[in-house]
């Protein structure tokens, strides 16, 4: 499914026409590898930087500030020489398949390294987490692995079963898994969709609709009817309940127009408000937890109505649920933006981790950075994600934590005719002070897991460690692999084939002032927040972009390829651009990476 403009048709639904063919970008970089990324990378790609050989522009009044943690693995891996090199060799395979695992043998030699990364996806995840480990009380992923999975592997090796996925199979097919560190979905009317459409970056990505909204009630998983078609087809609702639910949802669609219906209840919680409406208890449950996705205590009437309206507003634009998921995972999206950027001249210095900043003594501005090879890269602006800072820089910052778990299971939490369901399930917190757990179950057709398995992401705001927060929910929904000794008995719950728990830092909503000694041209972008949508990230990216380029349009649509005139002497200037990096010429043409802004590059 390609993202296109569509109208909301909560009440009258019609599928959008999806006949558009994938337009091929007219230039592409194949060296760009991002196996596991967090959303914050998008913001990083928007940074502008000037490249220069180390040793240049050395002034006496410059000191090296250790603002950055050392030996920090860059998220953007790969090296610039390779980048330039492969950019000269247009790949035969025109589709963006750097993370694809479908046809490894057909890939060009330059993708060998990607292949290696893919195989090690799981390990990569673990390693990355250790990074958080340094600073947070996250549990090491590899620890979990050894304690949980090794016995499983032995078990399955001894008793291989037909049609049953074993641990060794998972390892063998490891390349078929694309595990996001961050588990989010796209609201079909969220800011990110709007941005993808506006900037035409959507052409580089494909999406699938979330097919089901689920609820966990009285120990059972059930489907929540939320669209008109769902309500019509639902077998679990009575006729009267169907009417009640539709009536309430229709009201929520334009609740602002009927203030008399809720004004009297503004002071109470949304859950109390629902009790005053003509809704049966199970309808109240569906609306509260699965549609408004809030809790008994968390939100007041207006917030709940707003959340419900937002949910409903997103329905029907691309399908029967409000959410989209990008094929190959959320990590595709930063890549897509980078790709658009590269098409219009952006340059990536892959595999250059930043060692330290060069700060002008007088102006207290960052002048350049030094990479791990001691190479100096001059920069006017420096944009960095929160987790790259050293402890010194963020010694005064109070971080919240996000508890995460990633599971591989052998079947869906709710079996239906189709085994290609993508579901979201909200499990309310049981005790006061605990948070609702968001469960997103991905099927193999999302290209994030191998056939016969499901990839399950659990997320909640941390109250303890990830394991303590999430394990109770995992136990309710799934069966540990080792418990199924009676082989013939049909197990109701899906079995866990692999599990990973980790905490990650929630650096959203942190004021810039909380960091120590930041030069004024260093911009901080937060890591991902705990929410389901991406609105915060888009807002933040736009805000940072406006700080750096105050008079520029944020992610404008690229010009039509037919309207682009390529200069006759372009070849020459290209050569000189790329020769800069290895050959160290003294005078380097400036190259801006501002996204989709060809005027600037042509000046």
């Amino acid at each position, binding site marked *: 499914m390609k993202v296109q403009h569509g109208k909301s048709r909560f009440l009258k639904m019609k599928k959008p026409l999806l006949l558009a063919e994938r337009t091929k970008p007219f230039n592409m970089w194949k060296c760009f590898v991002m196996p596991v990324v967090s959303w914050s990378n998008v913001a990083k790609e928007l940074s502008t930087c000037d490249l220069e050989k180390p040793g240049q522009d050395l002034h006496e009044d410059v000191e090296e500030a250790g603002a950055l943690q050392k030996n920090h693995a860059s998220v953007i891996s790969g090296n610039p020489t390779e980048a330039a090199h492969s950019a000269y060799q247009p790949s035969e395979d025109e589709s963006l398949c750097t993370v694809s695992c479908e046809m490894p043998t057909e890939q060009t030699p330059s993708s060998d390294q990607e292949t290696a990364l893919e195989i090690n996806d799981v390990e990569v995840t673990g390693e990355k987490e250790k990074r958080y480990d340094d600073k947070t009380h996250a549990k090491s992923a590899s620890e979990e692995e050894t304690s949980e999975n090794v016995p499983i592997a032995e078990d399955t090796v001894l008793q291989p079963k037909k049609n049953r996925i074993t641990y060794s199979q998972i390892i063998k097919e490891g390349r078929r898994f694309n595990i996001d560190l961050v588990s989010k979905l796209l609201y079909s009317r969220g800011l990110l969709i709007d941005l993808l459409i506006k900037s035409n970056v959507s052409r580089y990505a494909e999406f699938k609709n979330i097919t089901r909204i689920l609820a966990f009630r009285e120990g059972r998983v059930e489907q929540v009817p939320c669209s008109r078609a769902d*309500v019509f087809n639902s077998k679990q609702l009575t006729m009267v309940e169907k009417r009640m639910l539709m009536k309430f949802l229709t009201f929520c669609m334009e609740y602002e127009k009927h203030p008399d219906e809720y004004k009297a209840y503004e002071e109470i919680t949304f859950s109390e408000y629902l009790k005053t409406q*003509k809704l049966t208890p199970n309808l109240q449950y569906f609306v509260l937890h699965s549609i408004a996705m809030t809790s008994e205590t968390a939100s007041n009437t207006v917030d709940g109505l707003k959340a419900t309206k937002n949910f409903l507003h997103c329905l029907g634009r691309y399908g029967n649920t409000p959410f989209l998921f990008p094929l190959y995972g959320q990590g595709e999206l930063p890549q897509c933006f980078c790709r658009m950027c590269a098409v*219009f001249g952006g340059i990536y210095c892959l595999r250059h981790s930043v060692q330290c900043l060069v700060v002008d003594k007088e102006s207290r501005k960052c002048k350049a950075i030094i990479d791990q090879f001691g190479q100096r890269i001059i920069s006017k602006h420096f944009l960095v994600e929160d987790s790259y800072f050293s402890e010194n820089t963020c010694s005064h910052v109070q971080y919240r934590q996000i508890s995460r778990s990633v599971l591989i299971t052998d079947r869906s939490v709710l079996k239906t005719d189709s085994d290609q369901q993508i579901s979201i399930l909200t499990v309310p917190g049981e005790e006061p002070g605990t948070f609702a757990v968001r469960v997103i179950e991905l099927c193999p057709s999302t290209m994030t897991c191998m056939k016969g398995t499901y990839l399950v992401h659990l997320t909640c705001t941390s109250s303890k460690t990830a394991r303590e927060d999430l394990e109770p929910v995992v136990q309710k929904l799934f069966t540990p692999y080792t418990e199924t000794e009676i082989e013939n008995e049909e197990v109701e719950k899906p079995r866990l084939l692999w599990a990973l728990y980790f905490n990650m830092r929630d650096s959203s909503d942190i004021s810039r002032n909380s960091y120590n000694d930041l030069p004024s041209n260093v911009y901080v972008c937060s890591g991902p927040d705990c929410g389901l949508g991406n609105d915060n990230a888009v807002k933040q990216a736009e805000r940072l972009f406006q700080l750096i380029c105050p008079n520029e349009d944020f992610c404008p649509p690229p010009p039509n390829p037919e*309207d*682009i005139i390529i200069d006759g002497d372009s070849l020459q200037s290209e050569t000189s651009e790329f020769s800069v990096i290895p050959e160290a010429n003294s005078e380097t043409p400036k190259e801006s990476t501002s996204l989709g802004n060809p005027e600037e590059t*042509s000046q």
Partner: protein
Amino acid sequence: MHGRLKVKTSEEQAEAKRLEREQKLKLYQSATQTVFQKRQAGELDESVLELTSQILGANPDFATLWNCRREVLQRLEAQKSPEELAALVKTELGFLESCLRVNPKSYGTWHHRCWLLGRLPEPNWARELELCARFLEVDERNFHCWDYRRFVATQAAVPPAEELAFTDSLITRNFSNYSSWHYRSCLLPQLHPQPDTGPQGRLPEDVLLKELELVQNAFFTDPNDQSAWFYHRWLLGRADPQDALRCLHVSRDEACLTVSFSRPVLVGSGTETLLLMVDESPLAVEWRTPDGRTRPSHVWLCDLPAASLNDQLPQHTFHVIWTAGEAQKECVLLKGRQEGWCRDSATDAQLFRCELSVEKSTVLQSELESCKELQELEPENKWCLLTIILLMRALDPLLYEKETLQYFQTLKAVDPMRAAYLDDLRSKFLLENSVLKMEYAEVRVLHLGHKDLTVLCHLEQLLLVTHLDLSHNRLRALPPALAALRCLEVLQANDNAIESLDGVTSLPRLQELSLCNNRLRQPAVLQPLAACPRLVLLHLQGNPLCHAVGASEHLAELLPAVNSILT
């Protein structure tokens, strides 16, 4: 690879676009011209196919070019080998598909596909069904595609069960789909044919109940969606009754025989003839309508020769046979009587429940209950209110009369746009109830005063009525159908808004007519009354025409036979 980029300015873009359009237009026009020249010259070869495909590919609605293509294909059929033809057909099918993508609602394209598939020796129907399914996935309400699908399903003899399952899947996706519901109403009677004796076009009860549940799901989910309500109406409706002769009346005085049918028919056209046997021997008569117009009518009458009415025999038997509908009826005129009749009672035949079916009342009762439940949640839903009224009529029109009138009031308030329609519907129901009450009382007097009537209907049911009171209503006319009241002696229609009297004509027995306080403006509107031979008393007080200068003289001149005209 990254060239220095320069973007064309908007003027440059506009200019480029303009040139492109100009170029396109040139090509289009020259291609069209060439095709027409070739067609005129009779050069119907593959080059015409090529040229027309260029044009149709851009504009599939060029009907003449489709005709042209058909001519070429017909000619090539005779010239080519089967292999070549197969290749030709394959290209043509692919081309049609690409045209449908340009415009999925092009009449010409779908028609051409029908034509082509109909000519193929071994058409691949499965592929065509697949094509329909794909287009309906994109737009489930594309009626062109639905038409084509029905064509394909008939040609390929697809079992109705499979097509029904297909409608299921589409309704599941979006139940607001008239075509899909309609298709069901065609398929279900095929799937569940009723035994010959039963009512035609009806469903067995278990199937009916399942359908009712499905459609209830739809209108409880969205009561404002009409498609489900229409289907609901179909489910509960009943098939057209067979033609029947409702009433036969013979009058000695007027030497006239009157027949009333269950539906308007046209007697004397083609095979549809009405035979009359008097005392078991056929009699050739001239049939006419009461108002003298030759068009379909409920009531037909004929003059009888004196011989068939003589008072010597103890009785005369009149037997009428309607050849087109295999209906017949017999009545007897006894010696010494002025008239004789034979009639199906409206009460026995449950005549006025015909909006909805004569299904078991338990089904209707439970439908009524769920609709009332819905109405409680949605007090202002017009479809629900209307369905409740119809269900009540089907269950027991007299028992629910009061409740029905209340629902009408609510309905008019929520749907003011259709107030006039609702008034007429209400009038119809009230009239039906009055007829029922009259028949239960076994009298020939009908009181319809003070009922707020806006329209008169079912007048053919009133063949035998002698006294009719229409006073204090909102009637604006006495319609031509009133001429069917052959026995009417006294007609009161005071305090209405009557402007015309077309129906008060040729009423053989009418003696007294009251039209006080109406809107009769010109004496000329009373012209039809001149054809009422026995009219002696006419009340016209309170009409605008009374104030006109010389009105009385004019009236006396117009109606010389009327003894007293009160103005």
